[in-house]
Structures are given as structure tokens and as C-alpha cells.
């Protein structure tokens, strides 16, 4: 049985999103990361920074969450509770994926010129800085009992297709 928290929605408001994007911008410049993507465990894109388009970031989110989730089944088989970091290294590019709160994952993409130690350092630092903002959003989501869409949506959904 896993905690109830795994089902908590992340409700980001304008202010939080702006703050996160600001921080991402700063870290992008300082760390020489190419892109930073914030996502949740179900693979939804929450925020991004860098040159990638939203469409690509969305695909990265789905795959990163998939990789992370599969890695955690591996962890369990090995008797670990959770692997909190996965790292993939290529010829030109690296991606570092880390769990920063109960629900949120941070993916940072780097060129290969940076040593692994530096990548770890920047990923950790970025994660630590945005963690309180996301935790605040999670807390708010948990206490939000009011429904977002209240009215009958039957007909609206018919019209969408």
C-alpha cells in the first residue's frame, strides 16, 4: 500500500509557475544545462525552460515518467524502496532525472562537456530550490476539496469531438 499522497494533484498557480520559470532561467545560465523540464509522476509537463518546444517537452515528460516508474519496479525487485535518481549518458547529451517531491520529477539535459559531478551538483541545487514551491502547491491541492468543473459537462464534451 502506497501513501495517499501519490494521488495528490499538483495545482500550480500563476505566481508559482512564474517563480519556477525564473529559477529555471537562472540555473540554465549558471549550470550550462541545455533544457530543464519539470513533470509529475504521471508524465504531465508542469514547466520547462530552454530551447525545446512544449510538444517535445511533453514527450520527454511522458518518457521520463515512464523510465522513472519502470526503474522503481526494478528497485522494488532489489528490495529498495525507490531509486530517486536515474541518469543516462550519450555521445553528446546526458539526462539527469530526479525525484524532488512526492509527485514531481526534475529532468535536466546537459551537453556532454560537463563532468558528472557537476551535473549532480546542479541537479541537486535546482531541485532543492524549487522543492518548497512545489510542496506548497501540493499542500494546496490536498486541501482543495472544491471541484474545478462543477457544471454538467456531458454536452460540452460531446461538442469537443
Amino acid at each position, binding site marked *: 500500500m502506497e501513501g495517499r499522497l501519490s*494521488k495528490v494533484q*499538483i495545482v500550480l498557480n500563476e505566481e508559482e509557475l512564474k517563480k519556477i520559470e525564473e529559477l529555471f532561467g537562472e540555473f540554465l545560465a549558471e549550470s550550462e544545462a541545455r533544457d530543464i523540464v519539470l513533470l509529475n509522476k504521471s*508524465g504531465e509537463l508542469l514547466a520547462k525552460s530552454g530551447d525545446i518546444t512544449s510538444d517535445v517537452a511533453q514527450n520527454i515528460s511522458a518518457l521520463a515518467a515512464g523510465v522513472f516508474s519502470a526503474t522503481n*519496479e526494478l528497485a522494488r525487485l532489489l528490495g529498495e524502496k525507490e531509486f530517486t535518481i536515474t541518469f543516462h549518458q550519450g555521445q553528446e547529451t546526458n539526462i539527469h532525472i530526479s525525484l524532488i517531491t512526492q509527485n514531481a520529477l526534475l529532468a535536466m539535459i546537459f551537453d556532454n562537456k560537463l563532468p558528472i559531478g557537476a551535473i549532480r551538483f546542479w541537479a541537486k541545487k535546482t531541485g532543492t530550490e524549487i522543492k518548497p514551491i512545489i510542496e506548497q502547491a501540493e499542500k494546496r491541492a490536498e486541501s482543495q476539496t472544491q471541484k474545478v468543473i462543477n457544471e454538467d459537462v456531458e454536452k460540452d464534451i460531446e461538442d469537443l*469531438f
Partner: protein
Amino acid sequence: MSTINFAKREISFKIVYYGPAMSGKTTNLRYIYTTIPEKVKGDFTSIATETERTLFFDFLPLELGSIKGFTIRLSLYTVPGQYIYKLTRKSVLRATDGIVFVADSQIEKKQENIDSFQDMIENLIEFGENVETMPIILQYNKRDLPNILSIEELQQDLNKDNKYQYFEAIAQEGINVIETLKAVTKLVVQKA
């Protein structure tokens, strides 16, 4: 877990197509991809074996349009149905908002359908999900084939209490594919 982005006024939902091997899950997503291309946002990603069987998952991001001022986004996934991918399947189901269970109507698939449904319920319970309130739609697929179970029989196997809405489908020809998607969308949006 649905994600509400108040800044962008977007709500995103994860929907998983679950079911036994070869029941037609990937075929559903492929049909959606080719039928409503204007709603596809990004790439259709398929992580498959060399023989086109799903190895990890398929992923199709959709942007349907807006309701009450919120843009509705869906992320559709399929699980790999083959038995050996049990844990991969479980990992794809995690944190989902709704499920389409694609059953194979063929008589010889009777037990596989039942086992797959049971496996799904067990996974949900293990995740701590409330099985009673989880949006689930059934799709009885491959109705075009000759040796198939009757609807009564399928209902008896998978939907004894008539708890779930079901569709008879021929995914290969697109019959009731969009209707199934529409039905699960209604359930997840109503729950948000």
C-alpha cells in the same frame, strides 16, 4: 493524477488502455491518431518490439479544446499486454485518472480477459487507488470475428454488477473507438 495548471488554465488527464495481449489497445490509439490529427499535440510515441508488440507503452498526447475556460488535455497510454511484461504494465498504470479496458471478444481469450482485469484491479489496490471511484470503461473488441463470446458472457466475466459502461467495438475499422474515448473523457472530467 490530474494536473491543474491555473496559470495556463489547463487540466491534464492520464488515461490508460489496459487489457490482455493482442486485444487491440495499440490499434485504438493508432485510429485516434489518424482520425483526429488536429487534436494531436506532439508525437505518437510507440515503444514496441521488432514485431510491433508493445514493449513498454504507447503514448499519444491530445488537446481536445476548452470547457468552462479550461483547456482539456489528455495523455493516452497503452500497456504491454503480454504476460512477461507484468511489472512494466503495472508501472504504466501508476497515477492514472481513468482506464479503458480493452477485452478480446474471441472465445479462447475468455480467461485472459478475466486474468488481465483482475491483475489491473490488484495493481490499483496496491497503488492505494479507490477502485470504486476509478473511472473505467469497457471495450469489447473484435466483434467482427466469427468465434466470439456473447455480450452476456463478457458482461458476466467482467461486469457482473453492470457497474461499467461498455462498448462493442471493431478497433481495426474504428468502430466505437472515438465513442469509447468520449465516454472515458466524460468520466475523468466529471471527477476533476
